């Protein structure tokens, strides 16, 4: 286990009481808290380096551009990207996937083609594909999940028989915590002739990620879920695919020469970064990556696995609690229900004890339908959570059980 007390001291917000109690923040799959190093990096950027990037003829602008491009190289190295120019900064995973659907998808998917997603995809890796397929007259095929919350490999194989143009799936399910066999899935999809899009929103913060080992084509990530600022994120892609793609947004920065009625475009990645970029987000994300590297992605993954395992062990001992998702091959996300106590009621009761969890459909309504629930309660862990917080979660749930008459008060 990590030295949680030492790590927590780096996070100013975690020292702030919530409802008069010590804050127990267990909603890390939604967003994460920020260490002082990230807050400092953003402030320092504005204090010493701020200017518009890629266009200044003066030293300050050159330093701003350097800070921005250094951040890009940092992201590239963190996930073992094909090249720094294969990293396009976006507002997050959602924008990155929309970019793939809007640029690669619109250029390559035609009427009668198919696009494959899974029943455990977040709406952000589903709705962009729905929009694309509706526009093109293509078919969207949703791969089923198994009872214990994994991608059904035989259904995945059947979906590939139609030789889809694009196959998209999450590395880690945000609602179930399932860690998918992404390298295996990518290999199968490639054998079927598809381009592979991996939603990395829940894997990049929590696992050691190597996009070249996975052998995907596009990989989307969100900075705010990995200690970075809101509005930071990236699309990591094979440079040759980006080269061949039409632009996504038009504007400044993404052009080479502009005529009255047409333009030529900048080289990658700038072709996909129209307008003034969010430099503070990129700089903050680079600081977040530096923080995660100091702790070590493998150690973070081990720590979260231990917390999730402890939580599941204790939760299943409470009569009436159902934990969703597989028992192994899972990350630090624990989705559960407790008898007929609605997840929102659970969240309200836990909040009184300073415990923040998520209640709802987790932007995965097709998955909720398959689990036959309207909503679940979800606790999701990160490097600053400890076993005492698992105990706090369980203790507060028992309190919820008492209020609803499940256990004696």
């Amino acid at each position: 286990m990590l030295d949680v007390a030492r790590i927590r001291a780096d996070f100013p917000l975690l020292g702030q009481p919530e409802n008069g109690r010590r804050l127990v923040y267990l909603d890390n799959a939604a967003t994460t808290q920020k260490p002082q190093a990230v807050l400092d990096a953003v402030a320092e950027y504005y204090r010493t380096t701020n200017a518009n990037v890629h266009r200044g003829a003066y030293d300050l602008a050159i330093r701003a551009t350097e800070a921005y491009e250094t951040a890009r190289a940092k992201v590239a190295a963190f996930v073992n990207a094909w090249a720094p120019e294969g990293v396009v900064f976006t507002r997050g995973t959602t924008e990155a996937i929309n970019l793939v659907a809007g640029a690669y998808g619109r250029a390559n998917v035609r009427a009668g083609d198919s696009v494959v997603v899974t029943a455990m995809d977040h709406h952000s890796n589903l709705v962009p594909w729905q929009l694309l397929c509706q526009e093109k007259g293509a078919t969207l095929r949703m791969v089923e999940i198994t009872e214990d919350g994994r991608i059904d490999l035989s259904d995945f194989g059947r979906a590939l028989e139609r030789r889809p143009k694009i196959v998209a799936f999450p590395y880690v399910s945000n609602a179930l915590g399932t860690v998918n066999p992404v390298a295996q899935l990518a290999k199968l999809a490639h054998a079927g002739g598809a381009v592979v899009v991996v939603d990395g929103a829940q894997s990049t913060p929590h696992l050691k990620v190597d996009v070249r080992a996975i052998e995907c084509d596009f990989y989307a990530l969100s900075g705010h879920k990995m200690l970075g600022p809101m509005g930071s994120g990236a699309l990591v892609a094979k440079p040759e695919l980006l080269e061949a793609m039409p632009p996504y947004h038009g504007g400044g920065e993404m052009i080479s020469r502009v005529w009255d009625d047409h333009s030529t475009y900048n080289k990658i990645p700038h072709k996909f970064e129209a307008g003034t970029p969010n430099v503070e987000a990129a700089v903050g994300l680079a600081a977040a990556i530096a923080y995660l590297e100091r702790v070590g992605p493998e150690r973070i993954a081990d720590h979260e696995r231990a917390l999730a395992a402890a939580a599941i062990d204790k939760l299943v001992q409470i009569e009436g609690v159902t934990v969703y998702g597989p028992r192994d091959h899972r990350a630090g996300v624990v989705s559960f229900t407790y008898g007929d106590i609605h997840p929102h009621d659970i969240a309200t009761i836990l909040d009184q004890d300073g415990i923040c969890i998520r209640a709802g459909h987790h932007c995965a309504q097709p998955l909720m339908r398959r689990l036959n629930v309207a909503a679940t309660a979800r606790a999701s862990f990160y490097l600053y959570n400890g076993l005492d917080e698992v105990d706090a979660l369980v203790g507060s749930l028992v309190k919820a059980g008492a209020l609803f008459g499940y256990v004696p008060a």
Partner: protein
Amino acid sequence: MDTSPPEPQLTTLYQELILDHYRRPRNKGTLEQATHTVSLNNPLCGDEIDLQLRVDGDVIKDARFIGRGCSISQAAASMMTQLLKDKSIPQALALADRMSAMMHGDLSAARDKSLGDLRALAGVSKFPVRIKCALLPWNALTDAVKT
């Protein structure tokens, strides 16, 4: 494990009457001869209600609902349908206003006997994110009679 008695604030929120309506909802089901039907959901949390009314002239003769959601939204729906029977539409809309006032902390509304069992929901006003749960069936009602 901590099995100490629940917080006073929480017991105000989750009164027995509320849990009773949640677990044994009154008027749950569909109406044979509904004159007004409306479906509302809260996309943020997924709470759902289908409200059906049978209105004769100006008077609500019967009200039923089907719903899915938290104890607050479902209990509020159950309590509301109890209250609506034989009320005129202006009376029903006046109750909706009283309910909204109670949710926003109006103590006189919380003592208003015309709100019946709904007064048990007065504690919701202390939990701002849950106010929308208690008002969901009432929003369905106003939608139903105004369309």
